[in-house]
Structures are given as C-alpha cells and as structure tokens.
C-alpha cells in the first residue's frame, strides 16, 4: 500500500496552476483562470525526462484572499521510474494558497498506483505543511492484501 505520494496530491494541484498552460486566462493576484487544462511536472535532473505528476481539471477559478476553486480535479503522481504512484480525484475543491490547505465538502477518491489501496469519502481537508489529510464523512477504504506465505520448507 503506497500512500506516500499523497503528500503531493492536492497541494501539487494548486501549485501547478501557477505554471499551467490554460486555454483561457484571467489574471487575479498572480493566479490564473484555466479551463480544461493539464499540467505536467517533471523530476529534477538526472530524471528530468520523467513525469513526476500530471494535474488535470475542468476549471480553475481564482477567488479573493488567495483561494482557488478547482473543478474535476485529477492528479496523478509517478515514481522516478515512471510507475503510477497515486491517483486523486475530486469533483471540486478549494485551495487556500496562503495557508497551503485544500478542502471540500464534496467527495474525494484516492488510489495507489498499484491499485492495492483505495479510499473515498465526503468532505476533506488537506494540510500541506504537515502532510495531513482528513476525510470527514462516510469513509470507505479497500485494501488488497498480498497473499501470505507462511509455509515452512
């Protein structure tokens, strides 16, 4: 079960908006409006050709006070050798750029890249500074346990 990549999930989402290549733009407090966008982040050299994360969304709308509303968020993270690490989906969330927190009263789904762990629920808060994710309602997790092998030769 790999959850490590979740550290970057929603945070990366908002951060990457600053470097996204949107189809339409509107400037507000340095944060741009974007629609139907995809943003890719790469690893540092010597793995600069390897994709680190890919963020996509239907819309990112900047609000006042450093808030950013993201619709149909999908974030995929990858390991340095290109394997999928984590997939996060949320129909909507709000990212507070000043507090580095993402939240939503709506649903959230997280999968590990190997498909062995899945969690979903309604209402979440992601605190980037301490890498803490809270899902506040109706939590459902599914863990695929590897077969145990206790057979002694």
């Amino acid at each position, binding site marked *: 079960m790999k959850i490590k990549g979740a550290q970057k999930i929603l945070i990366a989402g908002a951060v990457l908006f600053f470097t996204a290549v949107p189809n339409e733009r509107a400037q507000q407090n340095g944060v741009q409006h974007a629609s139907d966008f995809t943003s890719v982040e790469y690893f540092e050299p010597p793995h600069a050709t390897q994709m680190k994360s890919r963020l996509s969304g239907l819309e990112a709308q900047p609000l006042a006070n450093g808030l950013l509303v993201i619709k149909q968020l999908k974030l995929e993270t990858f390991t340095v050798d290109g394997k999928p690490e984590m997939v996060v989906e949320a129909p909507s969330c709000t990212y507070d750029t000043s507090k580095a927190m993402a939240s939503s009263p709506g649903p959230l789904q997280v999968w590990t890249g190997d498909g062995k762990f899945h969690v979903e629920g309604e209402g979440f808060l992601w605190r980037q500074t301490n890498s803490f994710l809270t899902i506040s309602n109706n939590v459902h997790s599914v*863990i695929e346990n590897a077969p145990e092998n206790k057979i002694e030769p």
Partner: protein
Amino acid sequence: MKFFCFIVFFALANVWALRAQTNAPAEPHLTQIDSDSVDFDMNTNARTATYIGHVRVDDPQMKLTCAWLLANLPQDGGHISHIVAETNVVIDFTDDKGQTNHATSDKAVYNYNVQGAVTNETVTLTGNAKTENAQAILTGEPIIWNRVNGSLTATNEHTIFRQNLDSATTKTNSTTTSTNKLSAPK
C-alpha cells in the same frame, strides 16, 4: 505471565494456520475499512491512518468493530505491522470448522513482524478481554492470540466450559437412528 493453553480456542485462530498449510496458491484478499472519518498522517516516518467513529473492518477472516482504530501504513506495499483498535472492540470470526467465535475487549493490538525466517503475528486483547465460542468462554488480562500457531494465552485466565447438550442429544439420536436402520426390515 502464566501460560495457558486453551485447546478449545485453538480452533478459533486456525484459519490462518490452515491457510498456511495448504499447497494451493494463495490469492490476495480484500479488507474493507469503513468509518465516520479518517486522518492520514504522511509527515512522520511512521505514516498512520486513524479511523474514527463507527469503525468497521470487514476481512475474509474476521469482522471487527470499534470506535477508534490506528494503523501504521506499510512502506513500499509491505505488510501492515501495527494496528491498535480501541473502545468497544468486537471481533467475530469463523474457524476452519465453520464455528463462530466472538471476542470483546476495550483494546486490541495487532503486531506483525518477521525476524529472519520467523513470522510473529499476534493480537493482544486488554480491558475486559473475553473470547467465546459454542464450547467455552475465556476471560483474562491480557489475552494474547498468536495467529501463527493459533494458540491463545492469557494471564489471570478464567474459563467456563459450556455444557453441550446439543452434541449429546445428537449422538444419542444418531445411535438410535443407526440402530433402527439396522433392525428395520427392508
């Protein structure tokens, strides 16, 4: 700690031992955990998931309910090594003979580790710990369930064996039936 071998309850934990003995290829199984809320702490080296409120664990080998459950998340897809369940812990599982077993306690701690070629896997029940099945009721403080060999050990144990009238009746009826069959004209 006073060692207590409780044969009747050995069967309770033999699901895992039996599975280990089979030569059939093991298949992965799914464990579902539901709760009101969950906190994932990814900041520390020991990454944890804390499930809070109406926690329900549904596993092919058992069902567990409690109010609070903390699991240390394994590194690199490994085996979960440490789980703590607290408050109104109830564990139900069926042994290899299809017998239902029921355990309750205030707290249950699961530990798993492999040292060399030796696998250690235990569940420690504390706080009004009790396990029971159709044959007997065991209380102790703590009750330690060794999932590797299926043994139960308890300190300050107290055991109540149930009087199994159903079995005696069944045997009598079976004998009678058998006798009747033998004597009945065809």
